[in-house]
């Protein structure tokens, strides 16, 4: 067997230095990461990276910061197992491997000039935040913006500061609901679907962008269709098991499509007849 180095490999890994770690909720931490040598990650909102820890493996994690955020990018990670657990033990100054950005990301050019409605359930806010912040930073290019957020309980809510910032902004219509809460919660209680009928929108020029747990999509989309939003204006980001991240290994296949390469962002028209999608 001869051994050689490969200069251009889809499995090449860049060094990412952790600048800061913040505990967000009981099981989620956020990480600020900068690529070595100040290299730009150069991602689109909705893309993800594969985070590597040598000896443990890698895992797909959405980039939660907007590309307008310079100098570093942010990841929010829930501790569920091997890699995520090990990542949670890391501190500022440690190095992780970064592969990516991967995936297609949200269709920004298509969204420009239109009204946007963001629907996020649970951790879905993580990839969506990247786009929301991008839109807010380029607010002029977009029409009306509404953000609907659903969570299990107030304690599981991420990005508290930003949420209250969105709430205060006049150019953003923000509402939030939780499945259940302690008596001191003053906001909505109920499923995220219950927020949709109340939104005042012009269905012809509204694009809905939905990200959340798998069970959420069907119900949310039904509500969106009930509001007459055209199928071709509904986008969503799907989650599947991923290993290679470049459309080969087969884990993330949804019918004939690869979630990692053809997605993770899909237009509803593309997947509505795919019985494996929703």
């Amino acid at each position, binding site marked *: *067997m*001869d*051994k*050689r*180095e*490969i*200069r*251009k*490999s*889809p*499995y*090449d*890994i860049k*060094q990412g230095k952790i600048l800061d770690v913040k505990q967000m909720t009981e099981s989620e931490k956020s990480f600020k990461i900068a690529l070595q040598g100040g290299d730009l990650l150069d991602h689109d909102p909705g893309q993800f990276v594969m985070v*590597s820890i*040598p*000896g*443990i*493996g*890698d895992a797909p994690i959405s980039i939660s910061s907007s590309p307008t955020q310079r100098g570093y990018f942010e990841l929010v990670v*829930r501790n*569920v*197992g091997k890699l*995520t657990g090990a990542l949670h033990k890391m501190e500022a100054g440690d*190095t992780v*491997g970064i592969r990516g950005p991967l995936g297609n990301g949200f269709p920004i050019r298509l969204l420009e000039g239109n009204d946007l409605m963001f629907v996020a359930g649970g951790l879905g806010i993580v990839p969506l935040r990247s786009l929301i912040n991008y839109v807010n930073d380029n607010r002029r290019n977009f029409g009306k913006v509404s953000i609907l957020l659903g969570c299990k309980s107030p304690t599981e809510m991420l990005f508290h500061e930003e949420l209250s910032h969105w709430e205060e902004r006049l150019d953003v219509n923000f509402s939030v609901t939780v499945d259940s809460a302690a008596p001191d919660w003053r906001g909505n209680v109920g499923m995220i679907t219950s927020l949709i009928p109340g939104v005042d929108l012009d269905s012809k020029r509204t694009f809905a962008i939905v990200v959340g*747990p*798998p*069970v959420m999509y069907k119900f949310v989309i039904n509500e969106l269709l009930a509001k007459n939003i055209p199928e071709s204006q509904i986008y969503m980001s799907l*989650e*599947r*098991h991923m*290993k*290679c991240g*470049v*459309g*080969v*290994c*087969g*884990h*993330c*296949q*949804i*019918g*004939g499509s690869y979630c990692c390469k053809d997605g993770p962002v899909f237009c509803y028209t593309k997947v509505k007849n795919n*019985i*494996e999608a929703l």
Partner: protein
Amino acid sequence: MENLVILKKEDLNDFVMQIARTKKVVAPVKKGVKSFAFEEVTSGERIDLDYTSTILPPKKYFLPQKETIVEYDKSKKKWTPTLYSEEIVLFGVHTCDLFGIQCLDIIFSENPKDFNYILRKNRILIIGLECSNYCDENASCALMDNHNPNGGYDLFFTEIDDRFIIHVNTYHGEKLINKTGLCTKADKRDISELRLLKERKRNVFKNEVDIPYAELKPLFEKSMKSKVWDEIGEKCVSCGNCTNVCPTCYCFDIIDDINLDLNTGTRTRVWDSCQNGSFAEVAGGENFREDRGERQRHRLNRKFNYPVSKFRRYFCTGCGRCTRACVAGIDLKETINSLIEEKKGN
């Protein structure tokens, strides 16, 4: 014909020995009572050219069961994409398997290009072998139109009486032939016998399933909700044999191995199977193909439906391995027939 040469059968041993002196030669050899496998040989002695398709297809040389893709050093915070490869002469590949290799070529040449695959492949010289008869009743190579070669080789051997007629398809193949110095030019008689053999093959190989080639994809498209999948799901034990032995299955997992120093190690790519229960499971517990029937449906759609949309070709070679390897007796031809029956019933 310029590119046809002759090797006497009695010289095969010499031929292999000569090549084996400088390169690793792999060829079909007998395993157990009625099975075969590609293994390294140093002479013609162990080679069995009258073989039914090997347990594993030659993909194991192109996409090894476990291969290093990255080496890392934790303390240096360094990852290095790495390739281990060797020169191989792959001898005696049936036409179905030639097609299988071509399918893999397509997959790994897509963007982003997989250089682990491409560079390894470039070091493998492929010698094909004509089938004059079916391996066994499990094959459906005529249905898939793979009983005749469609390229994908450097040299191609056709056995006729006391000799091989060799089609020289590439410069690499030609160099190999010249180096051995054992071959002579084919003459008119050889060419006409070759033609005769092809004639004869037409009578031997007949579409094994009652459906035209072009109708296969529509059949699978229409069968997404078929009951046949439930029936198969009941039988399947998810051992993954069908995918492991399939020449066009290439799903893999990526795993980190660490050395005992707990510092250096390798990231490896290992064969995985979409038939494994947790193949499509994500954190949070959602499993997108929890049901065995769904997994089998997915496997066959990856042969007869999805790749046709993408690459305009079926990804089944008709080799029959999945049927042969299934401990539970799930039979590909039977499955297709059941789907046809069901559609007729509607």
